[in-house]
């Protein structure tokens, strides 16, 4: 059974256009026919699952989570975000300021400094 045959049968089940001649060739093989039957069974199973089951499960989960936990989590996220932004701002503000000098010296006029650059 080739991958092309699988795709062909899958497309057929999904009601997409398929090459009739190729479909005929696939269905002439026992494996092809068996795969088509499997696809039909799978489709039936999917249709039998109650619609909205997943939504109902999610609702049940939500009802079991206390509101205060949700609020606490949200507050933690906000605090973390504010801290992150503040840290970035602080870092930027620090980089915009020169470091405090450990020592201050002057170019001594006439000796180390002049109208003509002193060497």
């Amino acid at each position, binding site marked *: 059974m080739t991958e092309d045959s699988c795709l062909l049968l899958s497309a057929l089940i999904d009601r997409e256009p398929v090459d009739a001649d190729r479909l005929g060739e696939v269905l002439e093989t026992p494996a092809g026919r068996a795969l088509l039957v499997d696809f039909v069974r799978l489709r039936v199973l999917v249709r039998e699952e109650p619609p909205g089951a997943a939504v109902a499960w999610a609702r049940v989960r939500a009802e079991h989570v206390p509101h205060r936990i949700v609020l606490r989590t949200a507050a933690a996220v906000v605090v973390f975000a504010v801290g992150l932004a503040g840290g970035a701002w602080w870092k930027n503000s620090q*980089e*915009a*300021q*020169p*470091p*405090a*000098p*450990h*020592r*201050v*010296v*002057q*170019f*001594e*006029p006439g000796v*180390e*400094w*002049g*109208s*003509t*650059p*002193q*060497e």
Partner: protein
Amino acid sequence: VLKTFLRRVTLTVLALGWPSNAPGPIHAQQNAVDFTTPTGQTLALQARPVLVYANGGAAAYVSAAVSLSKTQFRSLRLSGQLADTCQMSSEVSEYGRDGSAPAPPFAWTIASRLVSWSGTEATLDVRIERKDRTGAFRASANVETPRRLRLREGEHRVVDMMGVTGRDCDAVQFDVALLINDPAAVRHAALSYDIWLVHRDADGSDRNVRFRTSGLSGGEVPFAFPPLEHRTDGTAVRSGRGDLHTTIDGIIRGRARPDGRLELTVAASRLVSSGPLGTGDGGTKRLTVADGETVELQLPPFSGSLPGVDLAQFLASQTTAVRVTARRVR
């Protein structure tokens, strides 16, 4: 190709001794002691011929250096033969220290002895001798051969110059420079520099500009800041349309020391310009700092003048400094 080959100039370096206190016969001096600075550096005198071409270009193809001693003269001979052109493809070889090599047709011999070392500047006694049996040169009256030289690191000084007859180049200069050889422990060190322009205007507002750079220990590294702009009444302008531009830039040279500290030489210059007119000042400061220490170097009040602008009033209430943090990174 053959012609070019035949026109090569072969320069030969002879490291020879010279008796103390005298130009004279060249003798080997094996016992001279190299001068060593308190931080373990040795000094050397580098010499090189520089060809000056008719189009204004210049080229140096070979150089040689000899260690300096305080106790004895040390000498260096650069010899060669200049043929029809100044195109140079040089060969350098050392003939030894016994002075027994055959006398070349042309040679400079320079003997030097260190008189003193200030930490930034060396004072040298020098004796320079030129021998020319080629007839290709004529002595130039433009350069007076010195007997005492004061040299800073990296500074080249022309000590002799000769005009060239019938060649493609105009002259050959002979120049010397001071080399500082660092101890092995710091010879390949590298430094980073965090340099800030810290400027306060008359209205109390600050303008700080950062410049980060790095370089090898002992190497010069330029730095520069964008111009500070003002109106002629001294009001700071931040839009880029000021009447007066004050540009601060300079060169920093850091050197790692074996004890972990750093020697810094900071040369700064300040140019105040108004249109095509400008006036400036500048200077150099030498410091020894700890690794990572931040030092602020304050520029003196500006004393220059520009036509139509009262710079004294304009700059009286401003302060400008360069703040440097140097770190060894390798």
